[in-house]
């Protein structure tokens, strides 16, 4: 390979190392840079981990501008899936919301009590009205709510779920799921397709 190509491989490897834990399922943190560079382009992998999070005590607003106490919303025993989006996101979010839209159909009856929540990380642009118009394309309703809020509260929520990366353009694909209150959260970093999310959900749902 000529010089330019191996420069690119080194660049990719460096960028890759920064994103390694998030994008490569089961990858160990420290490994050969060459292997890394080879695996990098895929992006269809995700990483699953189990975490404990404390839901912050904030009041968000749904697409009808109704206040929603996040702790109360997440205090029930109904299963939830959560992701973080913003309506002008062009690369990651269109995929995330389409996947979300497809999940209930993959679960069938198992989706009966599932509630999906998409939280905006660009709350000043994503007003309730903006969310309403965006969500129209995806079937927002009782089972799938879009939430926004005050800038500081949204930051608090992102920090609570370890997804705050400063500027919204630094955000990463993330889905969280939890079977019932008091249980741990399953964290899916990366692009999981609807079947994969459904499979992960079934794992979570087994008591």
């Amino acid at each position, binding site marked *: 390979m000529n010089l*330019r*190509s191996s*420069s*690119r491989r080194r*660049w990719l490897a460096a*960028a890759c190392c*920064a*994103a390694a834990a*998030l*994008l490569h399922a089961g990858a160990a943190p420290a490994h050969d840079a060459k292997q890394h560079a080879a695996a*990098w*382009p*895929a*992006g*269809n992998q995700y990483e699953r981990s189990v975490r404990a999070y404390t839901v912050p005590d904030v009041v968000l607003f749904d697409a009808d501008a109704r206040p929603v106490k996040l702790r109360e919303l997440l205090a029930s025993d109904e299963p939830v899936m959560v992701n973080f989006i*913003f309506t*002008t*996101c*062009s*690369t*990651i979010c*269109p*995929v995330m919301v*389409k*996947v979300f839209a497809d999940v209930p159909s993959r679960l069938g009856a198992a989706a009966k009590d599932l509630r999906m929540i998409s939280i905006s990380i*660009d*709350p*000043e*642009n994503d*007003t309730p009205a903006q969310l309403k118009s965006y969500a129209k394309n995806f079937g927002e309703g009782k089972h799938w709510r879009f939430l926004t809020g*005050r*800038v500081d509260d949204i930051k608090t929520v992102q920090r609570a779920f370890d997804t705050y*990366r400063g*500027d*919204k*353009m*630094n*955000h*990463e*694909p993330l889905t969280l799921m939890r079977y019932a209150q008091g249980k741990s959260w399953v964290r899916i970093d990366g*692009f*999981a*397709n*609807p*079947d*994969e999310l459904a499979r992960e959900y079934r794992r979570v749902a087994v008591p």
Partner: protein
Amino acid sequence: MGRLTTIALIALATLPNLAAAQGAGAADADPLAIGRRIYREGILPSGQSLQGLGPANVTLTGAQAACATCHRRSGYGSSEGPIEVRSITGPALFGSRVAPLAPGSEGAAAVATAQPGTSPAEAARAHAIALRAARTAAFAGTRQRPVYDEATLARAIREGVDVTGRSMHAAMPRYALEPSALESLSAYLKVLSAQASPGVTEDKVHFATVIQPGVGPAQRRALIEVLQTYINDRNQGLRTEVRREEAGIVRLKRTYREWVLHVWDLTGPSESWGRQLEAYNQRQPVFALVSGLGHSSWRPIHEFSERFEVPCILPQADVPVLADRDFYTVYISKGMVLEAQALAKFLHDEGERGPVMQVLRRDEASAAGAEAFRRAWTAATGAAPLERLLDEVPGAAFWEQIAQQTQGATLVLWLPPRDMAKAQALTGAGSRVKAIYLSSSLNDGPRTGLAADGDGRVRLIYPQDLPAVREARLDVARRWLRNKGITLTDEKLQLNAYLAATVTGMAVSHSIDTYSREFLVERLEHRLGTANELSIYPRMSLGPGQRYASKGSYIVQVGGADDRQLKPLSDWIVP
């Protein structure tokens, strides 16, 4: 290849006209127009939506599937989280050299005709220009991969395999494009950001600031002073860099050019402004419009920007154009509409259910505020506000009548100070008015001509950061102005001008291998949010396709003519 090159060359000469003919039936047969439509809108030659298979088995269609969605209009790409969207400009993909100067611009002829018989001076000049572009491209990293050709490009788009044979990241969709669509798209990609923009010459970049009639001479002077000072300052720094470059000791190569500021004063009725702008642009094309000032609708300038693809960076426009899909104008905020919507939200959330009356006059800013308030209030409460329309400056009798008219009325005055010169009755002892709301934009902040009263009835819609809070943050910006010998006479005006100039400089300094107007706007989309220490707004932010940087407002109680006596009655309201 030869045919496509010919098409590309013709397109280079006629690109602005091409832009104007966007979407017209006549342009449909043109491969570049077809390619552009696929690229920007995700619409195929047949009129059907482009479909792409994205990551996580998701099918993307139409605009979501369009190349521009991720690679951006300029083609330079972007980055989002862990995903680096690569540049797919003509030079980046095909390795063509960036044409350093737009056809017809000063110096372009020298580059094009470096032939035997050219004088040594001309040849040296042509060589220097060409060298600049090549060196910059080499450092820019847009050529860190082998070049594509038709076959490898088709494979990349259809199969997601890059030019080295490796699978691309799943975020890049796979498209089943017909050969003719691919050919058109390829033709478009070849010319995408492959030429320098108008307004850029061998050693200069031209900018203009647009000033509407109706702007007072002091304001006009203050605006120009800040912009010119910024530019002079920047140009001083450049001279050193050019000498270093000549001495061969510059490590990181940039295209250093001197900035030139033009003032485009508009006169007469707004119907004629479009023509005036075209005439200015014809005489000396500019790379972008920076800041600017106008109390009337910004529409004629907005439309000029869209038509000629000239960015307009943070004009101080009281009546911006509210558009969903336009590209070239980045506004500070929604102006009067923001004020009106914030007030309506405030009153509604506070539970105000009494009578609301607004007073307006027949000028665009006032009317814009009133119309937006009427709409928002009606939507929130089902009832329209009462209204009074002024044709002349009202006397005391008018105000006395208003003060007595309705018990507990909320008054919204979309008026400048001179209209309220005789309005003492409103805040007098016998006034039955509950509260009076004024517009910051139509007044000079708290200098409203309506004296604050002891009952706190005089209030202001205040779409800026509270003075006490922004004091510390703006220290650097204020000190810069002071150090340059500029007296702070109109903080909002001067700081907004400084902001516009600085963020333009910041965005341009990120240029890769050519001066791209689209790239300038895209950099701002991405980076404006980092410029908060230059801004009187608590938080500016943009995103892909967003064009209004500051999105909220306070409602404050006026305590006197001094900013610092403003008392917030609300949080930052985002309507």
